């Protein structure tokens, strides 16, 4: 068999993307920089869901709960008269989302298939109504974050999130960090186990793996990463509302994952990019844009079963990894 491991061509494409992303703010207009930042944030969100859908085989339809909850945590802890420090507010939001995922996951992983879809959806909707009906959190109007978090360490303050170019670079770097984190995770013993769960859970149990524990840990990691995306989203827009944890948001991120390609590391990034661009282009084209959007998604699902990522990767021949310690 021919060796289809990442070739020089792949590296070249990756290098081009890095340069393009790096230079974009020098040429891009304000609107486009904000749009690109939004795509980065949604890419992190979609990658986190892909860990569940694409790699663990857990179809969560309530993933926006962690995205939205992290935003509410930021709104809740941010002072009204100044900036919250990024260094404690981000871990708090991510940790809060992960804790929420531990609770929801602990109950949800006892079910599987359609029941898992329904129970995760139900939990997210419960949270939606909780925030929607709590005047304390702004009710259906949502809550505002008046100042962007500050990354200052003492008097050292190189990154200013009020500057949209700075925010853009932070989001781009975090996409790369999350991507690298997931790449490492999937090659670790833990990653081997969750991929086995997706393929055949009963067999994994028969081989001696306590499968529920691995599913729960995967759910918590995905929740925490969704929390990171939710934190960045709330920080960028300065606003969080119950809609951020509603089922439409969960559906949108699921579509990004499916569009881009489930079970592909970079698929969700492509998916988020395509979804946001389609959204913007089609909306300008016609007031019936949702119909067009639906048509495009149906076409991609029918003709590209591996999503957009399937366009660029031929079926890889799994390689035995022969380097020893």
């Amino acid at each position: 068999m021919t060796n289809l491991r990442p070739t020089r061509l792949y590296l070249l494409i990756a290098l081009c993307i890095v340069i393009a992303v790096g230079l974009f703010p020098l040429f891009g207009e304000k609107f486009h920089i904000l749009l690109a930042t939004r795509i980065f944030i949604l890419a992190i969100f979609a990658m986190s869901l892909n860990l569940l859908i694409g790699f663990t085989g857990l179809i969560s339809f309530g993933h926006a709960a962690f995205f939205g909850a992290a935003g509410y945590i930021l709104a809740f802890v941010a002072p009204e008269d100044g900036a919250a420090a990024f260094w404690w507010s981000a871990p708090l939001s991510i940790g809060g989302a992960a804790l929420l995922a531990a609770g929801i996951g602990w109950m949800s992983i006892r079910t599987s298939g359609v029941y898992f879809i329904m129970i995760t959806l139900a939990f997210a909707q419960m949270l939606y109504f909780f925030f929607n009906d709590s005047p304390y959190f702004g009710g259906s109007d949502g809550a505002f974050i008046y100042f962007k978090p500050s990354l200052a360490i003492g008097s050292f303050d190189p990154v200013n999130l009020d500057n949209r170019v700075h925010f853009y670079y932070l989001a781009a770097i975090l996409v790369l960090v999350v991507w690298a984190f997931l790449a490492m995770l999937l090659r670790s013993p833990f990653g081997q186990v969750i991929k086995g769960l997706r393929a055949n859970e009963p067999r994994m149990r028969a081989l001696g793996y306590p499968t529920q524990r691995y599913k729960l840990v995967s759910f918590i990691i995905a929740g925490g990463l969704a929390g990171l995306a939710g934190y960045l989203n709330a920080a960028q827009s300065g606003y969080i509302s119950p809609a951020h944890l509603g089922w439409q948001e969960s559906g949108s991120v699921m579509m990004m994952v499916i569009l881009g390609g489930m079970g592909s590391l970079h698929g969700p990034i492509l998916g988020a990019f395509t979804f946001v661009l389609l959204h913007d282009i089609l909306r300008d084209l016609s007031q019936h844009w949702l119909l067009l959007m639906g048509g495009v998604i149906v076409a991609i699902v029918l003709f590209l079963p591996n999503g957009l990522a399937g366009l660029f990767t031929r079926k890889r021949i799994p390689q035995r990894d022969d380097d020893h310690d």
Partner: protein
Amino acid sequence: MTDPTMRDPILSIKGLTKRFGALAAVDDVFLDFASGETHAIIGPNGAGKTTLINLLSGDLPPTTGTIHLLDRDVTALAPDRKSQLGIGRTYQKTNIFPDETCFQNCWLAAQSRLPSSMRFFRRAHRRADIRAATERALALCNLDARADVIAGHLSYGEQRQLEIGMTLATDPKILLLDEPLAGMSAEESVRTMALLTSLAENLTLILIEHDMDMVFAFAQTITVMVNGQVLETGTPAQIRASAAVRDAYLGHGPTEQGATP
């Protein structure tokens, strides 16, 4: 009646019953499996053989009764706990990871012996001990030359060998085999029999098999099940001599395969 050659039972079941609604698939079964023996369970379709294996492996919880592994009550343990205690199984319907290579299939099985796979940072395939266990299992099931082949591309017989190899990679003390020869060509059967014979030296084998020639030649103890109940347990000679077994299962005519000595 106790067999004088009977060693201490490694696995012992008492009053084991599994009901599906009104049907008792396994009905008040008492059996001892001696350490190191090869014990075949035979019986007509629907006798409850696979259900019994599923109860032993933990895939199904029993309705009543107990299962003891040495002195330990393992009745209610889940399959992963049973596997960790040394009860490995193979499935009647080949149950492998078809998109992965043979190496990766066995690797995943061998990795389950790590105290925990909650390891997030190092590359999985760098563990030299797991690699050694994987390669040992591949050699045992005669697939070392096929290590890098995608499991789904193997012949049916090779997939059955891999199925056994994966379970061997978990280093079991007791191996439950559900029809290991089913659907194999004659040549594949011979190869698998050679593998099972070599395994029988070190492991306790409990197997379901329909090939009577194989069962009578290979097993030290045979249990005949009918309608969820144990009809007879004994050496191949005792089973062959049993009038009850002949009536209920092996058929009345001397033409029946395996019934004639």
